[in-house]
């Protein structure tokens, strides 16, 4: 039996009929065709499916779509404004923070929430712990950390000059 589900995704209200056992990641990818959110491990470990749900980074492969009824969801597709990448996306691009790119949407979504929680003053140990829920099999993490540090600088300095930019 299907349920009618309405939520806000990347600023727009969407309504679809879905079976009750639909996961948020499948709602995003299959119903909305927002395929930037990836399914990596499917066992709640790799973080490739990370999206923002009502202000928190969550694993969309471990969240029922129905639980998100009325919620506000942001995916990787919702970060850039036009051709201008979000500062964290730009930092990953500029610092070679990816190789194959499969895990990158999840890392970017996690990283934005890390910066919102910790600002830009975190050390490497804190950052490694914060990245516990994201796995990358290409980069060895070195450039990911470099990217997030750069993205954090860009996000926090942007917030200082114009509070409307840099955050969602």
């Amino acid at each position: 039996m299907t349920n009618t589900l309405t939520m806000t995704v990347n600023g727009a209200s969407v309504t679809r009929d879905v079976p009750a056992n639909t996961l948020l990641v499948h709602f995003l990818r299959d119903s909305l065709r927002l395929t930037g959110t990836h399914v990596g491990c499917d066992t709640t470990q790799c973080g490739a499916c990370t999206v923002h749900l009502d202000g928190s980074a969550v694993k969309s492969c471990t969240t029922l779509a129905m639980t998100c009824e009325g919620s506000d969801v942001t995916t990787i597709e919702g970060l850039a404004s036009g051709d201008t990448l979000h500062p964290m996306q730009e930092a990953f691009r500029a610092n070679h923070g990816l190789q194959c790119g499969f895990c990158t949407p999840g890392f970017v979504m996690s990283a934005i929430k890390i910066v919102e929680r910790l600002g830009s003053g975190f050390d490497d140990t804190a950052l490694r712990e914060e990245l516990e829920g994201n796995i990358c099999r290409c980069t060895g993490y070195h450039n990911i950390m470099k990217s997030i540090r750069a993205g954090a600088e860009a996000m926090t300095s942007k917030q200082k000059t114009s509070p409307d930019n840099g955050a969602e």
Partner: protein
Amino acid sequence: MYSFEYHRAETVEETLKLGSVLEDARFLAGGQSLIPMMKLRFAKADNIIDLRDLDELRGIEVAHDIVSIGAMARHAEVAASPKVQSAIPALAGLAGGIGDPMVRARGTMGGSIANADPAACYPAACLALGATINTTGGDIEADDFFQGVFETALGEGALVTGAEFPVPDAAAYKKFRHPASRFALAGIFVARFGDLVRVGVTGAGRQGAYRWIEAEDALTENFAVNALDGLHADPSQMNSDIHGDEPYRAHLVEVMTRRAVLNASAHCGDE
């Protein structure tokens, strides 16, 4: 995942009513254990009752040396709560070390307690702090609540609504994490109330979380690391799997207990 029908209600009362009329129903809290289990088809239910709207189960309060946490408080909320950080820093630290930031944003204390995963962190704290588990079927002492691997004293159709943790004079939680899953291979919560010491062990025991009574006696006599000299965890009581056999887990219990005592002693002056 097998198919199911989805339900939710606004209040605990209506939620329980749904649970009593629906066949083969399960409650869904944060879903960070239940959903993976359902995806693997280790768990199934015809009806899922979502607890997401039960705001009455979200509060965190400290009064009369008791920290009361609502069942739907998420791990991230407990970890970031100034009240918990100040009253029982080891408990805030435990919540902040569960899984990863995304899991902590969804997972709830009540879900962790009700699920009683043998490697979950909260049961160790409940046992060591002598917590009272609040359920819709009445209050249950932690010692009576945890009955084995995924086994609790929670009544049929009942809900965990919260837990009350007495504030200790000193406490520490030390976890040796599995390198991939980050669950505890051995997690030790040590709490001292006056001279009385309680030691909760998770991750290691064959029967789920338990209290290490011999260590409690030794530490009640003398709250110092060397009080544990010569004391051994019994390998026959330990869990064994591809990640660690019985003697290895017994060794981890001994080592992590010493670290917890050292850590709790170091913080005595602050509290």
